[in-house]
């Protein structure tokens, strides 16, 4: 198991195997510790991180093309130097926050998360990142704020996919504030301890492990605090199939396919599907956020 990433990374870049194994067992359950206070080890389960190639060569990032291999092929065109994130709206300290300045103030952690795509495939990804909550605190959230809106970079000279209106560019996403400040919600800046590759959303992207992958917006350039539910790209494109919440839910099908099961990437030609877990397996941590809501309506 552990051999997989050792093979794909240079020795100097790889996380020491023993450290990784320990952390892996911890992290699988540790995510909810902050909330519930249970020792994470009690729910330990073995999560096998996917190899670097699976994670970085099988991507949806339509700004670089709609085929899964397009982003890995085209995303090198994106310049991530001098990146900054505009934080505005209902915040105390609006402005352009330079990526380096953000990183200097954030605590980067390892988070081994299941990743479930709305297209019914899944991977396990060892992210590195910081909690979105900390970044929002940096800007100071005003009490009137209820939602957080996100925007992806839009650069037609660096993103060949945007020449065609697959979606209404720029890509936008949004969360309710309580979802955004949840300890599981991170801004990822790395994978396997390396800088996050462009095709995975460099230099920083959102990761919300209990929601379908498309909510985890990539290459974020703007974060706005609002008092109204912000528009989201897939919801604008096809509201029947992509709700605002988009929580992983095996009981609520996508219109065109069942969400009851998923195919784990890398299983080959004869791999069986595995059952999908409610909230992608993070129900213990996040189900309370949706208490009293009908998830078939607020899908």
């Amino acid at each position, binding site marked *: 198991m552990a051999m997989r990433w050792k093979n794909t990374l240079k020795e100097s870049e790889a996380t020491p195997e023993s450290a990784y194994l320990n952390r892996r067992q911890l992290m699988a359950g540790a995510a909810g510790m902050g909330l519930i206070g249970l020792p994470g080890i009690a729910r330990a389960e073995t999560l096998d991180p996917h190899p670097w190639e699976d994670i970085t060569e*099988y991507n949806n990032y339509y700004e670089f093309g709609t085929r899964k*291999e397009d982003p890995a092929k085209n995303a090198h065109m994106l310049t991530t130097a001098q990146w900054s994130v505009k934080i505005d709206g209902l915040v105390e300290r609006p402005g352009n926050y330079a990526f380096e300045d953000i990183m200097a103030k954030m605590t980067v952690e390892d988070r081994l998360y299941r990743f479930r795509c709305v297209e019914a495939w899944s991977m396990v990804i060892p992210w590195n990142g910081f909690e979105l909550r900390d970044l929002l605190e940096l800007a100071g959230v005003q009490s009137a704020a209820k939602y957080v809106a996100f925007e992806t970079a839009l650069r037609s000279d660096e993103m060949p996919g945007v020449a065609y209106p697959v979606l209404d560019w720029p890509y936008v996403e949004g969360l309710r504030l309580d979802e955004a400040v949840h300890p599981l919600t991170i801004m990822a800046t790395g994978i396997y301890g390396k800088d996050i590759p462009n095709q995975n959303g460099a230099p920083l992207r959102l990761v919300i492990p209990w929601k379908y992958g498309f909510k985890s917006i990539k290459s974020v350039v703007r974060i706005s605090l609002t008092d109204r539910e912000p528009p989201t790209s897939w919801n604008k494109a096809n509201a029947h199939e992509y709700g605002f919440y988009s929580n992983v839910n095996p009981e609520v099908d996508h219109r065109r396919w069942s969400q009851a099961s998923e*195919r784990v990437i890398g299983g080959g030609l004869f791999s069986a599907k595995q059952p999908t877990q409610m909230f992608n397996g993070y129900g213990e941590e996040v189900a309370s956020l949706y208490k009293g809501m009908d998830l078939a309506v607020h899908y």
Partner: protein
Amino acid sequence: MVTELINRATRRIPTWSVYVIGLLPIPWLIYMAQTGGLGREPIKGLEHELGELALQLLIAGLCITPLRRYAGLNLIRFRRTLGVLAYSYVSLHLLVWLVLDIGVLSQIGTDILKRPYITIGMAGFVVLTPLAFTSNNWSVRHLGPKWRKLHKLTYLATLLGGLHYVMLAKGLQLEPLLYMSAILMLLALRIRRSPRNQAA
């Protein structure tokens, strides 16, 4: 002049060789799927490649008549071959979906009924089936004029195939729309030619 040369050259090509060439992608695709050439989700990859080939063959079949009418290119001998090959690929595409992709019998039925793009794809397969089974000289002789009428269903089947592709793509993707426009153009050519046969 050129068309005459092509017509003369293709007259010598036996149709069985077109079958052989047309079926070569199958072992190739299986090899690719096994060795990672079809990407990290080889089941989906195989399914898509087979479906796309089927659609391409159906479209190629629709090109034969206009090519003869407007360019004087006579490839009518290969029309049946293309049709039968297309049906083989549609069947394999369906088989991969049934066995490798879904696998659960109860879900297959629900999917066909519940998901319009699958319903339409299945309808396309159903429409093509009698055509494939009557693609032989015996049927042509015995059905007489009915054979021509029956085989106009190719138009419907290709249209359903194109629609199936447009509907399954996430977002407004270019490729399925290109296929669909090709199909619509090829069908439009026929409508203008014989307005009385529009229904077919």
